[in-house]
């Protein structure tokens, strides 16, 4: 009797171990059922221990052996059936978990894949927006900055030239005024020349008269007097011609004077207004381009952060593959346990014991032969080795 009880105790211990294994491998849904089975196994084990003590003090060992044997056998079969059924249910549950997990991870992966693709496209559009050239080597921001700086310089040069022109016009006006002021002096001098010519003419006339009075002796002098008169007339003619030319020049100078005054009288203060306004706008453009450059840098930084976040998501999402392999391994062990326990039932006690021992040995062998393919226990990046 004692030997039988010991053997059953070993078997119950094995069943308890299987139940504990299930508790360790099984997920949350299995936990309660497995705990109940562990409890049931422990109760049977306690009962066996009590029977061991009772049998030691028993008065009628044969009767006790038959009765206890049946009781233990029934209890064990109940435990085995319950464990097999629970394992079977666990396998079904795991199949559903694996399926839903795969579905969820596939959906999430597709979403993140699309997200990654859109992020790359967005980055491309931003690059197109802020750069140009065959290789996006030129920045619009730099170009606008250069344009603004160059335009500022051009405006400054234009204003300098305009101011210089205005100042020069004033000087020109003064010079024209001086010329105009000189004109009456020249005209007066020409009148003096006219007067001299007239007096010379009169003097020549008197000389001619005196020459005539002198007769033959004054003939030569009469010729000289005629020449002097001719010179006097030519002087008058030149003087008139010069006066006409001077009158024309005077008219032209007046016209220039009017024109120069018109230009010089223009209000050049608008140039200063243009300068101030243009520089204000250019400063705004420069400030905007600097802000755009900062924004472009921020966009680049954001794009990098986004890429890192997507990379982290991709790394994290691999739990689907990793846990899937865990679950498939657990499912295999549970499946084996369920089928193995079902095969343990037998009508004869010896056969039943043998079945249990075989099952425990097979389970042990399976666990030795089948390794869990997953080695990582966190979602941090795995090692990389190039041979």
């Amino acid at each position, binding site marked *: 009797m004692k030997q039988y009880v010991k053997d059953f105790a070993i078997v119950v211990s094995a069943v308890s171990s299987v139940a504990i294994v299930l508790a360790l491998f099984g997920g949350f849904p299995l936990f309660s059922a497995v705990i109940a089975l562990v409890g049931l196994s422990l109760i049977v084990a306690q009962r066996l221990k009590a029977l061991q003590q009772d049998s030691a003090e028993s008065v009628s060992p044969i009767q006790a052996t038959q009765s206890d044997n049946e009781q233990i056998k029934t209890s064990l079969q109940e435990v085995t059936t319950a464990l097999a059924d629970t394992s079977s249910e666990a396998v079904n549950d795991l199949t559903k978990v694996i399926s839903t997990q795969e579905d969820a991870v596939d959906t999430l*992966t597709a979403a993140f894949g699309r997200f990654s693709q859109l992020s790359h496209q967005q980055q491309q559009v931003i690059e197109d927006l802020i750069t140009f050239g065959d290789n996006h080597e030129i920045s619009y921001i730099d170009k606008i900055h250069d344009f603004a700086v160059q335009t500022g310089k051009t405006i400054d040069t234009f204003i300098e030239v305009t101011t210089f022109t205005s100042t020069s016009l004033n000087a020109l006006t003064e010079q024209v005024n001086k010329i105009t002021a000189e004109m009456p002096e020249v005209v007066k001098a020409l009148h003096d020349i006219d007067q001299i010519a007239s007096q010379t003419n009169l003097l020549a006339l008197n000389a001619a008269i005196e020459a005539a009075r002198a007769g033959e002796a004054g003939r030569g002098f009469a010729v000289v007097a005629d020449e002097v008169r001719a010179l006097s007339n030519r002087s008058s003619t030149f003087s008139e011609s010069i006066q006409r030319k001077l009158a024309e020049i005077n008219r032209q100078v007046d016209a220039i004077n009017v024109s120069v005054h018109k230009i010089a009288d223009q209000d050049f203060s608008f140039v200063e207004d243009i300068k101030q306004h243009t520089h204000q706008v250019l400063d705004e453009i420069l400030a905007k381009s600097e802000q755009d450059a900062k924004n472009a840098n921020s966009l680049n930084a954001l794009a990098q952060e986004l890429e890192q976040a997507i990379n982290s998501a991709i790394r994290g999402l691999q739990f689907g*593959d990793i846990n899937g392999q865990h679950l498939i391994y657990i499912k295999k062990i549970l499946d084996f346990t369920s089928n193995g326990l079902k095969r343990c039932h037998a009508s004869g006690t010896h056969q039943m014991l043998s079945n249990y021992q075989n099952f425990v040995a097979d389970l042990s062998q399976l666990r030795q032969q089948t390794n869990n393919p997953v080695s*990582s226990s966190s979602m941090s990046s795995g090692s990389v080795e190039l041979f």
Partner: protein
Amino acid sequence: MAKSILVVDDSVSIRQMVEATLKGKGYMTTTAADGQAALDLCQNQKFDFVLTDQNMPRMDGLSLIKSLRQMAAYRTVPIVMLTTEAGDDMKAKGRAAGATGWMVKPFDPTKLLEVAAKVLG
């Protein structure tokens, strides 16, 4: 011309993740769900780089590497294992089979791209 990469894994999500990572950097990718499907593809096409899982139905990664190394066209093509297996014995088997490198899942996309860039020269 963009480099072509064959991605071999029985997990749909891993294939998608690896493809998204590599395509983002301009690589051309083709996928296979197991070693046998990959081997069939390699009979008709020369890829520049093969990235394969170990545990797959029909044909595992080590067997795929051994078969590819028998083919003249794939004697020097880089083949990197991407797997959950991290044991030294498995790595030794991979090296003996002709693997170029060994990456343990989960992979980091940046590291995967670094490996691709390195083995593709």
